[in-house]
């Protein structure tokens, strides 16, 4: 609770900058329009108009707020015009992709830690895989998956998975290797099996790492889902909203979809944080 005042201060500062920025960026258009219509604007008029444009370069915060209110609270959540509906569509793909990515990442990490060949050969390629601009070839992936009959939620989830498995691999490899030499030696003196060593030492030791990387993975997964929604443009989801907004120059719509996406990410990441706190508390580590 100590954070409330600092956070509010920062938010306030951002709002001020935002309003100021809106004036700066939208000024040109307002002036051009006035010139075309032979009007002369006073400064207050100018400012008022920059904050009330239909298709501003940067919409003012209240414009976005009104749009959010209209599309979140005033529409039936099942309506195609409701942001809640689109957020739901994106969230399904995000969560599915996140689940798949976490599983894949976990499996790879276990393989890397327990198998010499994987340890030596896989990691450089895992890193290289993330330097491929998957976002750039997402459309092709969608098309190719479509061609072999996979469509709907799964292609989006696959892109999410591709982006989210990486932080999990990296974090889990670190976590599974975090027990120190002495702790491993103890297991040896008790002549514990590999499975016992894994369940009773490596796994619990890796928990803090797992949660930290799951948070990153969740955020990445959301980006993946949105990217997956872009090329199939006309379909549902926050990504489709962003795109449609962009085709028709609806900046306000873009910003509201964007803020909705950020809120969704914050909520999902917060959920993991909650699970983390409960789990670590029960393990006596918090």
């Amino acid at each position: 609770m100590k954070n409330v005042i600092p956070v509010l201060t920062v938010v306030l500062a951002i709002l001020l900058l935002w309003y100021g920025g809106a004036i700066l960026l939208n000024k040109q258009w307002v002036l051009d329009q006035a010139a075309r219509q032979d009007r002369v604007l006073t400064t207050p008029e100018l400012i008022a108009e920059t904050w009330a444009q239909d298709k501003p370069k940067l919409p003012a915060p209240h414009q976005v707020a009104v749009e959010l209110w209209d599309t979140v609270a005033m529409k039936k959540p099942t309506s195609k015009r409701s942001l809640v509906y689109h957020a739901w569509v994106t969230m399904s793909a995000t969560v599915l992709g996140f689940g798949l990515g976490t599983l894949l990442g976990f499996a790879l990490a276990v393989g890397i830690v327990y198998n010499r060949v994987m340890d030596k050969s896989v990691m450089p390629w895992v890193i290289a895989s993330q330097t491929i601009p998957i976002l750039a070839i997402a459309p092709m992936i969608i098309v190719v998956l479509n061609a072999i009959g996979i469509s709907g939620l799964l292609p989006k989830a696959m892109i999410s998975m591709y982006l989210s498995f990486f932080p999990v691999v990296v974090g889990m490899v670190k976590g599974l290797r975090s027990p120190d030499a002495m702790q491993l030696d103890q297991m040896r003196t008790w002549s514990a099996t590999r499975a016992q060593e894994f369940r009773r030492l490596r796994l619990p030791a890796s928990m803090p790492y797992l949660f930290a990387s799951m948070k990153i993975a969740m955020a990445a997964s959301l980006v993946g889902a949105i990217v997956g929604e872009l090329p199939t443009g006309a379909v549902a989801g926050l990504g489709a909203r962003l795109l449609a907004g962009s085709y028709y120059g609806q900046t306000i719509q873009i910003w509201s979809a964007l803020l909705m996406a950020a809120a969704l990410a914050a909520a999902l990441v917060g959920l993991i944080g909650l699970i983390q706190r409960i789990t670590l508390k029960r393990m006596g580590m918090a």
Partner: protein
Amino acid sequence: MSWILAGLIVWALGLWANVRLSKRKGRAAALAVPVIFGLVLVFVWEAVVRGFGISPVLLPAPSVIAARFGQSSGVLWQDFVQTVLKGALTGYVLGCGAALLTAIVVDRFDFLRRGLLPVGNFVAALPIIGIAPILVMWFGFDWQSKAAVVVVMVFFPVLVNAVQGLADTSAMQRDLMRTYAASYWTSLWKLRLPAALPFIFNGLKIASTLALIGAIVAEFFGSPITGMGFRISTSVGLLQLDLVWAEIVVAALAGSAFYGGVALIERAATFWHPSQRGR
């Protein structure tokens, strides 16, 4: 059929070689194993594309990509300069530099830390895909807007890591500085910055892959008629998939080299850290 068979055989051979090699010690083996893994991957790809007769419009074979690589090296180089050297690198340097300075300020003023970090986390959750078009609108079509996207993308990972790193000193290490009655700047310079280096490099490494991806993706939302992202997005429309893949190869090579470079510097700068000492 013969291609598929060949693919299977090469795969088995590669696996066998790696199982043997990974038992050996030494630099050469450590290098050979992933290389063999990669070569096998490429060969199997070739075999699958040829064996199943996959249309070049869907997935070109590596040999076709390689041929295109040679043919279009001029275009590839020009795109590389535009995207990587101008867009990604500039943005990376600016973004990481700004993040480090901010980290120090944030670390100095607790009020900012408690206010800025939660908001920062929220802002960092804004998908790049949504930000890119806006930044292109603000900063124009050329590399400046790509650099801006990269700045936004790398800023928070580096900031968060740096802030965490600056706080990662043990009570005893700080107490020692206290007994010396060291000033804030002295203890920053002699204790907290060195202690933060492993974290900072962690952030810099993450940022190095993000930078490239960010620059390329941003080009999807507006670019002059050059650049890797531009080429990828427009060549798909012309069905020049071989050129698309050649660009992707450039991206992967550049990204891996970038990451590797940062990792090398990390190794030199944090040689003392347990993670760099072991194994």
